[in-house]
Structure formats: C-alpha cells, structure tokens
C-alpha cells in the first residue's frame, strides 16, 4: 500500500465529504483527489520522476496538503521545509537531497530563487501568483496546472512499492548539519495505523491542527484524518488563542493536538468562556507536559481524554499513555504503541530492568530507513537487532520504566535542546554565532522555561575590544536561523568556563543560567 491511498480510498467511499478546512476554504475528498491527480501529472510533465525529491516550502494551507499528495501520486518523495527557514539552511537541504522541484509561494520565491542557479531543480511550482521563466527557471503556478485540460485528472500509474521513500524529514543533529530522516510508505502507514488505533479515530473526528506541517506531529494529523475519512481544520499558529478556541467551537472539533507551549498559554486563560463539550481528546507530544498543566486540564475538561505521547522523527511515535492512567502516573509517557517492541539497554547494550536508566531502543516497521546519504550517522542510530540482518533504532533518549513497564523520560544523550516541541542543535546555532565578527567564543544551552519547554540561550565571550549588543546578536540570528532556533537571551561573559579537557563546561553554564533566569 502507498501513503496516497489514504486519500484515494476516502475519495472513493466519501468523495463529497469535507476533508480539509483552511481559512474560508472547505475542500471535499473528491476535490482534493482530482486536483492532486492533475498536479501529479504536472510534476511528471516537468521532469519529476519516481524517487525524485520535491521540496514543499509553504505555510499550513490547502496548497501544502495538495503538494504532499500530488508528490506521492507522482511517485516522488516530499520534503517539508519549515516556512521560517532562511536561505542558507534551505540551500543546504536543496543541495543535500538534490531536489527536482520546489513548491512554494510568491513571497518566499525571492529567497528560493537565489538557490536555483546550477542546482538540480527542474521546476518551481507556485501556490499563488503567475508562472513564467524568471531568470530562465521554469516556474509554474497551481492555477495554470489545475486549469490545464491537457493534463489528466485520473491518477497516474503506480510505480512505487511500499518500501520506497515517501518523505525525507530534515531534523537537527548534534553535528550541526540537518539530517534527512528517510521515511518509507510502509514506515508512515505503520505509524499512522498504530496512532489511529490508540486514539480510536473514526470518520466522525474533526481535528484542529495549529502545528506546522513541517513538523511530523502536525503532518500526521492530515494522514490520520485522511485514513479514517475525518476532517482536518488547518490553522497557521496558536498566536491568537481566542481565534483558535473560537474555531474549535465553531467546527465542533473532537481532537486537538498540543505541545506544552500551547497548554501553557491556554491555562493562562479563563477557559470557561468556551464550550468544549464536543472535544473528545487532547494529545501532547514534542516535550513532556508539566504535571500542573495535566492536573488543570483534567479539572477544566473532565470529559476530555488526555494522551501524553513521546516520539521522535526517526520512527514518528514510540509511546502513548492510555488516558485512564493519566491520574495514576501523570509523569509517564506510557507504553509502546501497537505493533512495536521496545526495550532499555545499558552502555554495553544489555537490557535492563525496571528503575534502571538506559537508552531506549525501538523495533518495528515504523523505524526509518536511515539518514539520507549519511552512513555514519545512520550506523550510529540503527544498530543490529534480535534477527539476523535486522536493524533497530537507538533513540539517544534515556528512559527508565516502573514495575508495570510504563516509561519515564530521563534526558537526551546528546546536547540537543527541545524548544516549542522542536529540536535545536546547539552546534548549528553556535556556527551562526561564530560567523558574527566580534564573537571570540560562543556556547548555546537550553534552560527550563514555563512556556517554551526549554529556552535557547547564547553565551558569548566577545573578542577583545568588540562592542557587541544583545540586539546585534539576535538580529544576526534572526537573519540566519529558523524562528524557533533564535536564542531567547544572550549572556555576555569575559571568559568561558571549561572542563579539565578544555571543552566548554556546558553543565556549569546551564546551572548558572538557571540561577540567573
């Protein structure tokens, strides 16, 4: 089975049902399926072949969803890019995956254009605005492709099989360069099925999603609803909470996926002003929800099931806490999801029992194929499993279990910072800081933050005589990093604390920063 068959099957059995709501637009399964067929033929006519990579650089929108399924129908591999990504990172990913096409909009095309010369890109598809050939690059518009009667609106022939790639998901790695997690159709379908199983999703569900589709947790909301024939309401952000809560009420949403940043904002509000009687469940992932949030939400919405979950891009999802356990073990992220095995190992790879901290290892058909063209990083994450030739995922996350096997997250093995539910590589931010004249030494750390989970903090030792200000540093970061990676504060120091081996003593920095914040 292929991932795009989620859409095709729902279009067959419920073609007239509303699948997607975005702003004022409401599209049925039939409309989406037909449009994606034509767009897929358009991509193929532009030279996109089976297995080629198509980058999708758009805000949450109808066009972003169409682009995902059109790419899959063309037998190609979609690569979602966070809409706040700046030119350098975009160019790195484009060249790393050798993209054959880019789907974006007129506003972002300006920054895309500078990466095109000499690249592998054969076509650019614009979600809005006209086409043409600026600078000799072939640019098509959605409007023109959809209106092109020469392109069939029947599905293109299926050439891929389920172990072919469906998507590359770029994620921050401790080495500083983003890694492309290779997810096959089988990986994605397996994860979606398991999640649908424990959330008990049906075609009656209406999920309101504010998380970016460039974030796996956001993207899977679409896959899950399309699989069961439900409805997804897409929003771009939780920035204006009253607007989102109004939307939840008006659309009679049954599911609301959250990250701790959202629950922190919600709980500052008087929620009794809105009627959530139709809401069936809330999920939390990205980072652990603080226990006080869970307790308050339970009290405010006793009828709503709360699912604490844990996952990582490399296998999408690992655990969920059955909602009937949330009052008994609120600090746990639960047990393994259906059709998955996991265990905890010590440094020598031996399995450990309850109460002992070790690395979580995951086994199942949802585990990635590896990192795109990064054999060393792949070998580090995927290591021999119980069956001959099999490879299992070493998550790099430290866990322990209780006597009944419920899992408790302890820490990351590397220094990756989780902020607003997204991973930030300190090294990637440090590399940007070092490019700023006047920076002699830079260290990036995460400190606990009520709203963000962790806040990114830059510690800088200026070069002798350099007059750096926090504002200059933040401006430089904002120009070169995705929004969520930009430090919250900058701390200037005369010297950096070091360990006996001469490395920056990040633990000491974290401890001191915690005392100051």
């Amino acid at each position: 089975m292929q991932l795009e068959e989620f859409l095709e099957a729902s279009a067959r059995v419920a073609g007239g049902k509303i699948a997607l709501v975005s702003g004022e637009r409401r599209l049925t399964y039939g409309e989406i399926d037909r449009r994606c067929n034509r767009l897929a033929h358009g991509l193929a006519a532009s030279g996109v072949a089976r297995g080629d990579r198509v980058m999708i650089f758009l805000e949450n929108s109808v066009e972003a969803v169409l682009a995902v399924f059109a790419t899959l129908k063309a037998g190609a591999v979609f690569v979602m890019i966070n809409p706040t990504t700046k030119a350098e990172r975009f160019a790195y990913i484009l060249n790393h995956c050798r993209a054959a096409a880019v789907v974006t909009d007129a506003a972002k095309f300006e920054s895309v254009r500078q990466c095109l010369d000499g690249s592998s890109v054969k076509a650019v598809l614009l979600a809005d605005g006209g086409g043409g050939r600026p600078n000799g690059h072939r640019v098509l518009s959605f409007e023109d492709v959809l209106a092109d009667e020469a392109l069939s609106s029947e599905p293109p022939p299926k050439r891929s099989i389920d172990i072919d790639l469906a998507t590359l998901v770029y994620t921050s790695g401790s080495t500083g360069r983003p890694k492309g997690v290779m997810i096959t159709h089988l990986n994605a379908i397996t994860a979606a099925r398991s999640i649908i199983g424990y959330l008990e999703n049906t075609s009656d569900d209406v999920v309101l999603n504010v998380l970016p589709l460039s974030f796996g947790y956001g993207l899977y909301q679409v896959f899950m609803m399309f699989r069961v024939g439900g409805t997804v309401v897409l929003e771009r952000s939780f920035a204006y909470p009253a607007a989102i809560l109004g939307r939840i009420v008006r659309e009679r949403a049954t599911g609301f996926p959250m990250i701790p940043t959202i629950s922190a904002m919600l709980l500052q509000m008087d929620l009794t002003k809105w009627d959530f009687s139709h809401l069936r469940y809330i999920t939390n992932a990205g980072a652990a929800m603080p226990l006080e949030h869970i307790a308050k939400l339970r009290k405010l919405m006793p009828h709503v099931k709360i699912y604490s979950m844990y996952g990582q891009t490399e296998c999408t999802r690992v655990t969920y806490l059955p909602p009937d356990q949330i009052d008994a073990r609120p600090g746990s992220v639960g047990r393994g999801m259906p059709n998955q095995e996991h265990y905890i190992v010590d440094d020598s790879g031996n399995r450990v029992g309850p109460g002992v901290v070790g690395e979580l290892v995951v086994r199942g058909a949802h585990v990635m194929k590896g990192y795109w063209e990064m054999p060393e990083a792949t070998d580090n994450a995927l290591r021999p499993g119980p069956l001959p030739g099999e490879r299992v995922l070493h998550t790099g996350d430290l866990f322990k279990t209780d006597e009944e096997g419920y899992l408790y997250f302890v820490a990351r093995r590397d220094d990756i910072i989780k902020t607003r539910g997204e991973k930030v590589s300190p090294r990637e931010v440090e590399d940007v800081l070092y490019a700023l004249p006047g920076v002699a030494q830079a260290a990036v750390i995460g400190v606990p933050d009520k709203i963000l989970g962790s806040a990114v903090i830059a510690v800088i030792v200026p070069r002798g005589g350099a007059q750096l200000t926090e504002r200059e540093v933040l401006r430089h970061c904002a120009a070169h990093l995705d929004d969520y990676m930009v430090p919250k504060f900058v701390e200037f120091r005369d010297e950096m604390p070091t360990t006996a081996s001469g490395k920056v003593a990040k633990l000491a920095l974290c401890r001191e920063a915690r005392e100051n914040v």
Partner: protein
Amino acid sequence: MKDVLRQFINDNFLFGLQGRTLSDDDSLLEKRIIDSTGVLELIAFLDATFGVKVQDDELLPENLDSINRLVRFIEKKSKAAA
C-alpha cells in the same frame, strides 16, 4: 502611539533587521513577525505602556494583528475605561 508600537515591534521582533519593512496594515502573523510567545510579550507591553488589559476573548487577530488594528484596539479600550 503608532511610533511607540512600531519601535516596540522593531526592537523586539525585527531586531532592527535591514530589509524588513512593515506597513501599518501588514499582518504581524502573515509577515512572520510575531508568534505565540511574541503575542504574550505584546500583551505585557500594552499593559505596561498603555495600561490596556487584554481580556482572554480579545486575543484575536482583529484586535492585535497590525499596527492600525492595535491603534484602534487601544483607543477603544482607553475610551471604555474612561
């Protein structure tokens, strides 16, 4: 009032970034100038600078999402308080 708002947005969200200009009607969200935590900072600023207390059900783009909308909202709230 517009200048004060513009200065705040410039200092806190644009960091005086070259090449990012903002007109009075530009959407702060669409232009990616503000995000969830930015709105919280904006609310704290409205309280501290203009004495405007934003109620939960006023956390809407209609009230907060551009310089002109902010001006109208502050004026309306100030009048109601007077």
